[in-house]
């Protein structure tokens, strides 16, 4: 055996040793794997500047910081869409807690609210992101397992069915807030659960935690036609989102915190949607909760205590 070893080394020198071959292949393989693993970065379009990257948590921003952030967002939107938006950071009002009531007797399932919402809140048109799902249910049943959201008859309402629009229920005890590992979503004192799109890491825990399927994820860069961009924007509301963040209904924060009704209510052709301040005893929502047959908070048994109530007229 002994005399063989030196001669083996000799032959290796002449061509290539097994060790060197393995080293070379491993190096090339490693580089390929690295390149493949970095390839998702090619789809990163929205990473604009270091200001955004170094931006502080929403609750830690001073008014000066916020002014700078809003300026940055405005110029980004102008760059991407060619229009200068009006972005505000609207704070909750004192003595106001928002509640939504929806009259199931009146709703005809026309889905106008769905599209008014998309239009108001700058949701992606392709792929489609919609905050409101209108469920068609057979009369005499509240079983959402039997619901159909893809109905497409020539005209609505159809005989024997009723329609139940479902959107974020703005829970008093929101499971989505509890699961967020970075506190990118929280409940404000006027009852609206908001998302800081610049702080969200896109883990989608909140989407899984929500019993109402109210949260939507931007799998791709959202597509909004320039001529349909709503330029009245709020930081926690309808400013354009980027790929990889969550979004959901926020009771049209850019409207409601400025005193206006949400877009879904303004477009409802049958007046089935009611919105207002529950702390004001003269508001229509106070009247409804006091006087009408308020039938459900959806999935009441979950203990989420929604601020969204469904009621009947008769």
């Amino acid at each position, binding site marked *: 055996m002994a005399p*063989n070893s030196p*001669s083996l080394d000799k*032959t290796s020198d*002449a*061509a*290539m040793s097994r060790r060197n*071959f393995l080293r*070379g*292949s491993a190096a*090339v393989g490693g580089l*390929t794997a690295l*390149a*493949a693993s970095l*390839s998702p970065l090619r789809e990163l379009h929205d990473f604009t500047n270091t200001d955004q990257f170094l931006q502080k948590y929403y609750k830690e921003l001073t008014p000066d910081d916020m002014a700078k952030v809003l300026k940055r967002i405005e110029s980004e939107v102008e760059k991407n869409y060619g229009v200068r938006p009006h972005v505000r950071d609207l704070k909750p009002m004192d003595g106001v807690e928002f509640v939504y009531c929806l*009259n199931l007797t009146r709703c*005809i*399932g*026309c*889905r106008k609210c*769905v*599209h*008014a919402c998309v239009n108001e809140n700058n949701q992606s*048109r*392709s*792929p*489609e992101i*919609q905050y409101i*799902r209108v469920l068609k249910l057979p009369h005499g049943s509240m079983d*959402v397992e039997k*619901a*159909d*959201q*893809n*109905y*497409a008859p020539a*005209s*609505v*309402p159809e005989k024997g069915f009723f329609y139940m629009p479902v959107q974020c229920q703005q829970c008093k005890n929101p499971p989505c807030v509890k699961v967020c590992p970075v506190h990118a979503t929280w409940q404000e004192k006027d009852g609206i659960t908001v998302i800081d799109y610049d702080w969200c890491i896109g883990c989608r825990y909140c989407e899984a935690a929500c019993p109402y*399927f109210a949260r939507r994820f931007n*799998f791709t860069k959202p597509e909004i*036609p320039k001529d*349909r961009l709503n330029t009245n924007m709020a930081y926690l509301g309808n400013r354009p989102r980027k790929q990889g963040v969550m979004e959901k209904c926020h009771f049209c924060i850019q409207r*409601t915190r400025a*005193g*206006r*009704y949400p877009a879904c*209510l*303004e*477009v409802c*052709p*049958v*007046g089935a949607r*009611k*919105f*207002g301040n529950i702390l004001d005893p*003269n508001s*229509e929502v106070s009247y*409804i909760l006091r*006087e*009408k047959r308020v039938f459900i908070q959806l999935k009441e048994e979950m203990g989420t205590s929604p601020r969204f109530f469904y009621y009947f007229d008769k």
Partner: protein
Amino acid sequence: MNYSPPSAPNEKAARTNLMLVGIAVGFLVFAALFTKNLWGRVEPRKEIPLVDKKFLETTPWRKTYADFVKAKDKDALEDYDCYGCHEKNKAPPIRYDKAGKILIPKEHSDIVMGHGSHDRNNLCFNCHNEQNLTTLQVRDGREVKFDNIPPLCGSCHGPTYRDWEAGAHGRISGSWNHANEADFTRLSCANCHNPHAPKIPTREPAPGPHLLRANPETHATEATH
């Protein structure tokens, strides 16, 4: 033992180099596939047509007399000039067929009678004032102007009128804060209901959700999620 020294070292080195080049080329091909996304390329997304702007319309589908006055719509207001055709101080006659169904004169052929079931509500002067056709009347004799009809409707539909006044029936637009009257507007009964046939007609629904890469054939039967 059965090892023999290489007879042609150059030949072996060439073979090794060939193999190395082969591996390298293989890797490069894979890399090209990755970068060009040719490997496992996903089907391109289907174009989703933008929703028709008619579904974004917030104005109610009917206009009332008050709206016409506000908009100074002369053509529409002509319809309310009753004494352009009718004779003053003379109640117009109402004719019925043998079955007791009201006969609509051809001058008013646009009116479809459908207020109440079984054609029971078939007397024009239940609401119109036969003494003065430019106004309406409640059954107790109160005169009601065309631009403020809710009290007339409310004289029969009490609970609905109560809900409407509280904001639970109908639609209020503008501000949810009702402290200031100027900040909000309340739709009137006739903005949504045709007084002659108040049941709201059915309408075309806006398009439903387009599922990502959904098969159009199975789309309609797709489950909720």
